[in-house]
């Protein structure tokens, strides 16, 4: 494993809110205290005790619109239960970390969008369905309360970004398979695998099937040498940060159903750890085993998001 150089400071996204001050009660009930609002509403919300950031329609429109995270069925390609097609935005954040983003999350997706942006330290504004106020509020409270851990992301390979859509799709597939990569401008010697599209080793036509291409990369790394493995689901995408002494693992469940007993394998020896779970607080890791240069444990339950701290 190789810690990447860039450290992204995680911060919770901002909920964009256009309803009037009469909606204050609903926001307070959801424990949402930080908002992005149109400039003409800033003073009103501040007087009501909220932390607000003004954002204009133009600024919103200038942000990169993100697909709604989750799983979807694609005829002939995937089904939600067996081989799910995951829509995830983490690769976009990794590719363009300085960009500004906006989600328009339909009902049921707000909390996942908030967690996803936070996990990758993205500058994101979140338009939510009012029906999600409660779940988004719970998530925001959780994110705000997480102990700080500004650790570098961990990667097993590098991919040279040529800016092409094809390379973006390769990043997407790598991320969905929890193949931890770092986006670079030129190959880095410290990585065993450096993907440079259009070379003899990685011809563009091969990436025409990004799924097969991701399998090729997986074979090159070998499962044994991968820093991170996930067992018990194919709809949980992880972001791993840390070093030899400490790891923070972000787990994002895109499946929409709670998962029990998710099993994680992280290379390295970590004797203690805990899970931080929205709505449940701190939970001990279950069935923790340290063997063969790796640490394994199970997470009792994950709904949308969980953070694992290992030491």
């Amino acid at each position: 494993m190789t810690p990447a150089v860039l450290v992204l400071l995680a911060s919770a996204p901002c909920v964009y809110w256009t309803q009037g001050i009469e909606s204050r009660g609903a926001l307070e009930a959801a424990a949402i205290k930080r908002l992005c609002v149109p400039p003409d509403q800033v003073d009103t919300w501040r007087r009501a005790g909220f932390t607000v950031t003004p954002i204009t329609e133009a600024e919103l429109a200038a942000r990169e619109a993100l697909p709604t995270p989750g799983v979807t069925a694609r005829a002939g390609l995937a089904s939600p239960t067996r081989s799910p097609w995951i829509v995830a935005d983490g690769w976009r954040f990794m590719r363009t970390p300085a960009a500004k983003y906006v989600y328009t999350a339909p009902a049921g997706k707000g909390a996942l969008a908030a967690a996803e942006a936070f996990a990758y330290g993205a500058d994101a504004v979140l338009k939510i369905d009012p029906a999600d106020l409660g779940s988004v509020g719970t998530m925001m409270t959780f994110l705000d309360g997480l102990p700080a851990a500004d650790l570098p992301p961990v990667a097993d390979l590098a991919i040279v970004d040529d800016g092409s859509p094809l390379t973006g799709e390769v990043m997407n597939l790598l991320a969905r398979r929890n193949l931890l990569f770092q986006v670079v401008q030129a190959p880095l010697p410290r990585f065993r695998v450096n993907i440079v599209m259009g070379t003899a080793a990685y011809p563009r036509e091969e990436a025409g099937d990004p799924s097969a291409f991701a399998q090729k990369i997986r074979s090159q790394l070998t499962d044994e040498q991968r820093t991170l493995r996930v067992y018990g689901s194919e709809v949980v995408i992880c972001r791993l940060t840390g070093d030899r002494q400490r790891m923070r693992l972000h787990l994002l469940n895109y499946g929409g159903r709670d998962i029990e007993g998710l099993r994680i394998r992280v290379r390295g020896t970590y004797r203690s750890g805990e899970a931080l779970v929205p709505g449940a607080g701190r939970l001990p890791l279950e069935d923790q085993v340290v063997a063969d240069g790796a640490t394994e444990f199970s997470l009792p339950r994950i709904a949308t998001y969980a953070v694992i701290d290992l030491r």
Partner: protein
Amino acid sequence: MHRRAFVRLLAAAASAKAAAGIDVAAKGPSRAPLAGRPQIRTGLPPLKVVSRYSPAAAAGMPGPYPGQVVAVKADKSVDISTGAANDTVVREMISQGMRALTGAGATADAWRRLFTPSDVVGIKVNCGGYPHCVSAYEIVAETVRQLMGIGVPVTQIYLYERFQNQLDEVNYGPHLPEGVQIVAAERANRYTDNSGYDPETYLEANLFGEEDTRSNMMRLVSKRLTKIINIPNMKDHGATGVTGCLKNIAYGSFSNVARTHQRGKSHTYSVVGTLASIEPLRSRTVLQIMDGLRGVWHGGPFARTTKYVFYPRQIMFGTDPVAIDRLLLDIIENKRREQGVLSIWDRSPSSLKMDDTRARDADPNVNIIIREPGHVEYASSLGLGMYDRARIKVQDVTV
């Protein structure tokens, strides 16, 4: 905590035998002989077994009666006009079957040969063929009655399946004494409940490029049970050819097994037997009672309609799952021949409508996956039992 893991590479062990095998099935005619032919193959995916359990001194499979099967037949066991089983006849079939298998003079003594009052006994039922072909209430209830009769406390008897919704549908509870534990590992086949599985006992294999490469044994099996009774049905299976003792105990005791067969291809050939061979499942599965009161000759493992249901009206007893499944291959194949439809050994691409379950259900000449009835023979190569039909001793009993 450090684990004491015994890691074996079964594929490597099997490959020596496989090297001598011939790939008949891949090249053979679509109507292969009933007996099939040796088909231990090369090129199988590597399967890594991780278990900290040692084999028992005498493994449950193939157990004390390798290559021996008692087939008890009774025309009056099922009213084929209604499908209803006759409880009294079934009891007598079980009594005679167990005595014939063990050589005991009394039924209770036959059960005592395999179980003691201190055992915690799991009964692996099959609910997948609901509503028309599941492990019969009458057989399950009589099994429980016999266990209690030799002193096994009712609270030490477990009925298990992987999915709770299937157990709920079949609803064995009203047919059983109060106190029998009815246990599933997952609420439903949704791939979200892993807590019921042992994280340290599993098969690891990358079959189709799936990310989750592990199939874990049920915690109930590894942590609680001391003995297991396997009660499969006589059913056709779209991926394995038949689903009998091996498939029921293997795929019914491990997680994440649907991944082994998809997009027309089945890795069940080597995975079924390998799962069945993993300790402690192998050592603890000490009795096979194949429920052939009803059967399914096409569309299995499901039986949503009676269209493909038939009535063998027999129960087979043994400790050797391979020997019983070897007979099952012929039973299903014979029935399909009688119906004038595709052999379970057929591998022709023209029969294949990949993943089209509707077409398969409508037409018994359609396969959705190339079936792997050779999984039974492969299991024999792992020492799970006797495959050679000529060496299997069948004792026929008529009630």
